[in-house]
């Protein structure tokens, strides 16, 4: 005998309920913003990652970390694709630096290399431990620790007096 199953039931059989994924999305979205994505880019990448999680045939070990990594890859892919179609704009675009009147953490974060940004955002915004960050990004825990220390040092130097506030 055949039964028609609704979407949530199918997702639960696969591993996740929609609600279980949706609860993680605002944090992933904020992490992408912190990485440097625009609001529309962050929304698209987050949505894409959520759909992939929903379509996953097996249970993901750490859903928030997985969503973060998949969404950040999606965002970087879409940014690269956009650059390919607008090569001249990209070549001539000036790299935005921090404002002269106000030094912001996110502005300074955007000036860090992408690996350092990923590690800091995973730790501070996603709330992952060093071990979880290392697993999610596919690097050694020692590398996470060293990268985090380097990035924090740079931020402290660049933020200057405003770091304390």
């Amino acid at each position, binding site marked *: 005998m055949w039964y028609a199953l609704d979407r949530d039931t199918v997702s639960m059989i696969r591993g996740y309920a929609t609600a279980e994924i949706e609860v993680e999305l605002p944090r992933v979205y904020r992490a992408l*913003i912190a990485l440097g994505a625009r609001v529309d880019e962050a929304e698209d990448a987050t949505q894409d990652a959520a*759909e992939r999680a*929903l379509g996953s045939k097996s249970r993901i070990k750490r859903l928030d970390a997985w969503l973060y990594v998949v969404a950040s890859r999606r965002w970087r892919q879409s940014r690269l694709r956009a650059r390919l179609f607008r090569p001249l704009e990209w070549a001539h675009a000036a790299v935005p630096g921090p404002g002269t009147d106000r030094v912001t*953490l996110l502005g300074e974060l955007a000036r860090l290399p992408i690996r350092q940004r990923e590690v800091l955002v995973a730790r*501070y915004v996603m709330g992952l*431990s060093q071990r979880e960050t290392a697993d999610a990004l596919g690097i050694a825990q020692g590398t996470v620790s060293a990268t985090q220390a380097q990035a924090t040092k740079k931020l402290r130097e660049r933020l200057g007096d405003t770091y*304390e506030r």
Partner: protein
Amino acid sequence: MNDDLDPRLTARFERELAAVPAYRVAALDIRPRSRWRRFAVFGTAAVVALVLIAGTVAREVLAPRSSAGTIAVAGRDLPELVRMSEVIVVGTVLSKGGTRVTSRDPNDLSREDPNYVGIAQDYAFAVESSIKGDVSGTITVSISSVSRVKREPFWYEFKSDNIPPRVGSRYALFLRRFAFDASVYVLDFEPSQFELGTMAVVRSRWLDAKTYFPDRPVADFLKALRDAAASP
């Protein structure tokens, strides 16, 4: 677990991200375009693979047949070689010069051929004595090295069978004048180079060259050459 985090940085992150527009929850569903996207990726990969395979096959099918490996032999003894050659000189290779394009457009000989490029290497050759033809001083001997044939959309390159002469060595060369520059000489049909060391040694890619022109003393070789040139 996260004791190593800097609380000032944590607070700063929270404060700045609080100003970011809130996440707008979209209807979460598996959109069919995912499947289409996968199909598009595999489809593109398949098309690229097909184009590469077709390109390789086309390249082989379109490839022109090379004359490389084919040796045009002028004669099987010295009298025949002498009779067939326009210029025969004895002398020394002084230096290796530049290269020149020897091919011309059949429809306009003042221009280079757009579909075929013959490249030759120049050598400065000090003429010690001329056996046949009135040649003296230092001449330019141009020896074919590479030819490139265009068969759309490819260019094919063939290496010449000529053996490059050794700079500083003494040779007897069988030459003819280059059709498009009378001051330049090119090697005649094979065998066209005899290196004159302790013996006169034929230098040719023609496999039977040694059979028909065995090594012999230089004086003996030059006498035979002069006798052949003197006879009608």
